[in-house]
C-alpha cells in the first residue's frame, strides 16, 4: 500500500511524507496559465512510490496540462514540484524524463512505420539496453505480438492506444503518466489495461492516471483527486464517499409501515429517515453496524415484514457529480 494509507481522514498529506524518499511526485501550489486562461490553479498533492493515483475531472479541467507540466513539456506559471525525486526545473528536464514515461492523450504514432519500428525508435531514444528483448516484452504485455509487423496506420484506434502504452513501458519508468489510457478501448481491452496497471503496481511502478471512467478510478486507484481547474478533493475513493455522503441503510418491507416515525425515532446510531417511495425507507446512520440490528429488531417488534435491508453505497460517480455540479452551479451564479 502506498503512503496514502497513512493519511488522515481529511485526505491531506502530512508534510513529513512530502520530503521522504518514498515520494514519487510532490506538487506544491502549482499553477499554469495560457495567456488569460487558467489551465489549473494552486494544485498541491503528493503521490507515494508505488501508488496508483487517479486524476478525475471534466473536459478542460486541466488534467492533460498537469501531465504535460509534470512531464517537463510545459513550464509551470507558479509553484513547484518534485518528479521522481528531482525538482521540476529546466536543468533537470533530461534526467526527469529518463525516469518517467508518458502516454499522451493521443498516441502520436508514426503511421507509416510498423509497430515494432515505432518501438525501436523509442527504445533508442530512451537508450534502453537489450532493446529487442524489451520491445518483445512490451508487445506481449499489451497483447500485440502478432501485430508487430503491421504499419501503425492500419491499426484501429484501440490498437494504436495499446502501442502507445507499450511505448511507455519500454524504459521501465519509475513514474508512469497515463493520460486517459482506456479512452476508446473496448471493455475487454480496457480490462486488459486495468490488469496491466495492477501488474505494474505490484512491480512498484508509480502510476499517475487521468480518466473519465469513474469505475476505473474506483477499481484501480489507491487515491483519487478530483480537479476542476483547482483541486476539489483528494483521498481514497471510500474516504471521499464517506466524507460527502452520510451512510445510509435501505429497507424494504412487504407493506408500508403504519407509523414509521415511531419505529425509527430514538434508535441507536440512526440520525434520520425518509420514505423512498412505497414500502421503502432510507435511514441516515452514523454507524451501520450498530444501526442495522437495532432497526431490524424495531421493525420486527412493529410487526413489519422485512423483505430487504442493506447499506446503500454511493459510488465514486456520485462523489464526482456532487462536486462537479457544485462547480457548475457556482460558475452559473
Amino acid at each position, binding site marked *: 500500500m502506498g503512503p496514502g494509507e497513512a493519511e488522515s481522514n481529511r485526505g491531506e498529506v502530512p508534510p513529513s511524507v512530502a520530503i521522504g524518499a518514498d515520494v514519487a511526485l510532490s506538487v506544491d501550489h502549482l499553477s499554469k496559465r495560457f495567456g488569460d486562461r487558467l489551465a489549473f490553479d494552486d494544485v498541491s498533492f503528493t503521490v507515494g512510490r508505488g501508488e496508483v493515483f487517479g486524476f478525475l475531472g471534466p473536459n478542460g479541467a486541466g488534467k492533460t496540462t498537469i501531465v504535460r507540466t509534470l512531464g517537463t513539456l510545459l513550464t509551470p506559471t507558479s509553484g513547484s514540484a518534485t518528479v521522481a525525486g528531482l525538482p521540476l526545473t529546466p536543468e533537470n528536464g*533530461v534526467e526527469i524524463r529518463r525516469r518517467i514515461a508518458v502516454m499522451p492523450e493521443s498516441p502520436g504514432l508514426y503511421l507509416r512505420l510498423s509497430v515494432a519500428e515505432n518501438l525501436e525508435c523509442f527504445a533508442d531514444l530512451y537508450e534502453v539496453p537489450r532493446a529487442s528483448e524489451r520491445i518483445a516484452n512490451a508487445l506481449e504485455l499489451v497483447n500485440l505480438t502478432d501485430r508487430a509487423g503491421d504499419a501503425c496506420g492500419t491499426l484501429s484506434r484501440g490498437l494504436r492506444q495499446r502501442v502507445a502504452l507499450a511505448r511507455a513501458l519500454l524504459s521501465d519508468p519509475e513514474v508512469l503518466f497515463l493520460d486517459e489510457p482506456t479512452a476508446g478501448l473496448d471493455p475487454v481491452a480496457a480490462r486488459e489495461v486495468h490488469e496491466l496497471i495492477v501488474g505494474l503496481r505490484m512491480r512498484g511502478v508509480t502510476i499517475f492516471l487521468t480518466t473519465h471512467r469513474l469505475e476505473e478510478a474506483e477499481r484501480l486507484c489507491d487515491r483519487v483527486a478530483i480537479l476542476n481547474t483547482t483541486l476539489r478533493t483528494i483521498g481514497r475513493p471510500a474516504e471521499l464517499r464517506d466524507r460527502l455522503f452520510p451512510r445510509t441503510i435501505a429497507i424494504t418491507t412487504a407493506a408500508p409501515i403504519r407509523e414509521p416515525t415511531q419505529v425509527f425515532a430514538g434508535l441507536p446510531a440512526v440520525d434520520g429517515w425518509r420514505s423512498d417511495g412505497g414500502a421503502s425507507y432510507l435511514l441516515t446512520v452514523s454507524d451501520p453496524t450498530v444501526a442495522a440490528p437495532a432497526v431490524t429488531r424495531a421493525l420486527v417488534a412493529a410487526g413489519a415484514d422485512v423483505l430487504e435491508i442493506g447499506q446503500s453505497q454511493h459510488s465514486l460517480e456520485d462523489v464526482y457529480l456532487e462536486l462537479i455540479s457544485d462547480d457548475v452551479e457556482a460558475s452559473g451564479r
Partner: protein
Amino acid sequence: MNLSTRRVRAIFHRELREYRRNRSIVVAIAIFPLIFLIQPLFVVFLAHDVSSASLSQMHLLLYMLAIPVLTPPMLAGYAVAGERQHGTLEPVLTTPIRREEFLVGKALAVLVPSAAIAYVVYALFLALVALFAEPSVASAIIQVPDILAQVLFTPLLGALSVWIGLAFSTRASDVRVAQQLSLLGSLPLVLVTSLIAFNVIHATLGLAVSLAALLLIADVLGWRAVSPLFDRERLVAGSR
C-alpha cells in the same frame, strides 16, 4: 554538451524509413536535381552557340551546386512542423532527448539524402558529358578545380540550407508556410553559386577558401543557432 549518438541515430533512421515508405516524398525530392541537370545538359548538347571558349569562361559544374541548396528546404521545412502537425512530436519530447540531439538527427536525415542525390546527379552529368559531348566542350567543362569545388561545397552549402529550413520549421505553425519560407531563405545561396558559375563573381582560390571557411563555421554552429528557437512549450502547446 555531449550528444547521445544513439538518440541522434534513432531520429535519423526513423526519418529515412519514413522517406522510403513515402513515394511522393521521393518524387518531390527529385524535382530540383532534375531541373538543374536538364538545363546544363541543354546548354552542352542543344544550344547552337555553344563553344568550348565560352564554356571555359563559365563554371557549369558550380551552377549545379543549386541542387544541394534547393533539395533540403522541403524536407527540412517539414521536419519539425510536420511532426508537430501530425501529433508525433509530443511523444518524442517526453523522452530524455535533448533538443540538440533532435535537431542534429533531423539535420542529418535531410542533409545525407540531399547530398547523396546531388553527387549522383553530378556523376550522371559528368558521365554524359564525357561520353557524348564534343571533346573540346567536355574538356572545357570538366576541370579538376571545379570538380573539387563541387564535391567540397555540396555538403557545406547543403548543411546551411538545412539549418535555414529547420529554423523556419521550428518556428512556423504550418508545414506549408515552413517549406515555402525555407525555400525563400535558401535562395540567396543559389544566387551566390550562380553568380560564381557565370563568372560574375570571379572564382579564385582565395574566394573558395574563405567561402568554405565561412560555410563550415555556419554549419557547425547551425545547431547552436537553431536550438534556442526550439521551445518545447511552444511546440507542444502553441497554436497549430
